[in-house]
């Protein structure tokens, strides 16, 4: 294997972890409400632009990410309160919720355009530690290492929260059987809100990291990312977080190989080709449950 190819793989894995982190948000919400949140991409863009906004006010970049993380989490919670919970209460069909999230997506995106303009903003990489390590002949920059560490760390944290904490147990209970969860004394609406917060928070961090990595951010940046990471989540199996990780890495690596060999024009197409293939041949993804109808 030549070193260019290895480089594609390293880049692909770095990218893949970010995709997986964004995909987590889809999976979390899907596993609880059995809906796909189409506002996720715009909310990710909100995370990037708000971080930039706070950095431009002279606030420390990491603190900016932290403030944005909380704000973005609240933006997702607001979405649940104003457009998803009312539909849930009326037992509306899933497609209404789907369209409501799509609507919220445009509200957020247009709000960003009003606030920041529709143009592209420069976003200085705030996590370049200024060194490069060499593994054999393979140079890996500090930005990539930081990106890997943060996205990997956050996914571990999410896994820990869901599998090892008291709140996580309640989240898993609601995923399995909402009625029984209520009988246990679990306040389901609060758990749903908490889940939306987690989804928003991870989207915000990924938005800021990606914007810093490519040194650019703009209000519509979430369109492609949103769809790509939905493909990631579907490939892994919606609702399965570890599946999302593998899905992210597969799509990330494929993307880097295609971009490197066929040219960057085709890079965004990769995930959609993968998406079509999974929808045809593996509708429940790599780790998804065969039967996803909710009882």
């Amino acid at each position, binding site marked *: 294997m030549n070193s260019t190819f290895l480089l594609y793989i390293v880049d692909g894995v770095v990218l893949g972890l970010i995709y997986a982190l964004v995909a987590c948000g889809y999976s979390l919400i899907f596993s609880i409400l059995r809906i796909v949140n189409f506002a996720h991409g715009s909310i990710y863009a909100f995370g990037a632009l708000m971080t930039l906004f706070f950095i431009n006010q002279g606030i420390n970049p990491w603190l900016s990410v932290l403030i944005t993380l909380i704000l973005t989490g609240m933006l997702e919670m607001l979405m649940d309160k104003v457009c998803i919970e009312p539909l849930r209460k009326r037992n509306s069909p899933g497609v209404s919720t789907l369209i409501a999230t799509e609507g919220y997506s445009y509200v957020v995106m247009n709000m960003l355009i009003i606030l920041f303009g529709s143009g592209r903003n420069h976003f200085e990489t705030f996590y370049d530690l200024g060194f490069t390590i060499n593994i054999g002949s393979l140079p890996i920059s500090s930005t990539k290492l930081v990106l890997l560490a943060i996205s990997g760390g956050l996914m571990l944290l999410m896994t820990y929260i869901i599998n090892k904490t*008291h709140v996580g*147990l*309640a989240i*898993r*209970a609601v*995923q*399995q*059987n909402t*009625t*029984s*969860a*209520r*009988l*246990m*004394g*679990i*306040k*389901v609406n609060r758990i749903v809100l908490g889940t939306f917060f987690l989804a928003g928070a991870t989207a915000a961090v990924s938005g800021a990291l990606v914007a810093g990595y490519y040194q650019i951010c703009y209000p519509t940046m979430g369109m492609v990312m949103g769809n790509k990471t939905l493909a990631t989540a579907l490939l892994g199996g919606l609702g399965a977080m570890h599946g999302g990780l593998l899905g992210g890495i597969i799509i990330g690596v494929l993307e880097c190989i295609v971009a490197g060999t066929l040219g960057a024009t085709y890079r965004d197409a990769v995930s959609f080709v993968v998406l079509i293939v999974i929808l045809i041949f593996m509708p429940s993804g790599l780790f998804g449950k065969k039967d996803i109808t909710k009882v």
Partner: protein
Amino acid sequence: MKLLSVQDVNVFYGSIHAIKDVSLDVEKGEIVTLIGANGAGKSTTMGAISGLLPKKSGKILFKDIDITAKPAEDITPLGIALSPEGRGIFPGLTVEDNLRLGAYLKKDKEYIKRQYERVYTMFPRLKERYKQVSGTLSGGEQQMLAVGRAIMSEPELLMLDEPSMGLAPNLVDFIFEIIVDINKQGTSILLVEQNANMALKIADRGYVLTTGSIVMEGSGKELLENPEIRKAYLGE
């Protein structure tokens, strides 16, 4: 003392009048059973008491607290536990996680440990399988889990909806013995059953529900000896 008092409760599903002016009481320490045919409104009554279903009219008091308008998640902490129709276990979670959820609102680790022990003593089978994903248990084991989970928080009133459904006869006997045992430990019980014979044998009192209305009530013994009941529900 009246532990539970249901007064003239009406529940509708859309335009269908599911239960009509249902009134029933459970005294502290009693086993009360609600019998009736399929679709008579037994599970609806349970759903109404536990707060899963909205009531159109009527009143429900538990320990003299008005719980009519309270949702299920606010009723559970008062000391009512329902083991629902169809068991309602969390199939993807382990046996132990299911039990832990039964006492979700309790934080005291020592307390939880004691409750695990209590449930495992009653159902040794669950102890053997505590790490197993509960969806892979047999029907009988799932029923044990549903009952075990419901008593994890030591409720004052345990409501059991068809605990014998789909079980082999020896398991039915076992479950009924457990119910009597739980009652002896101080828990009052409201039991919904299609197996009227077994239910009336262990019950202090019983109510008969027909198409949404209570048509008869009496002690377990009286109902068991009533010729009409024998004909309608005991297959004679």
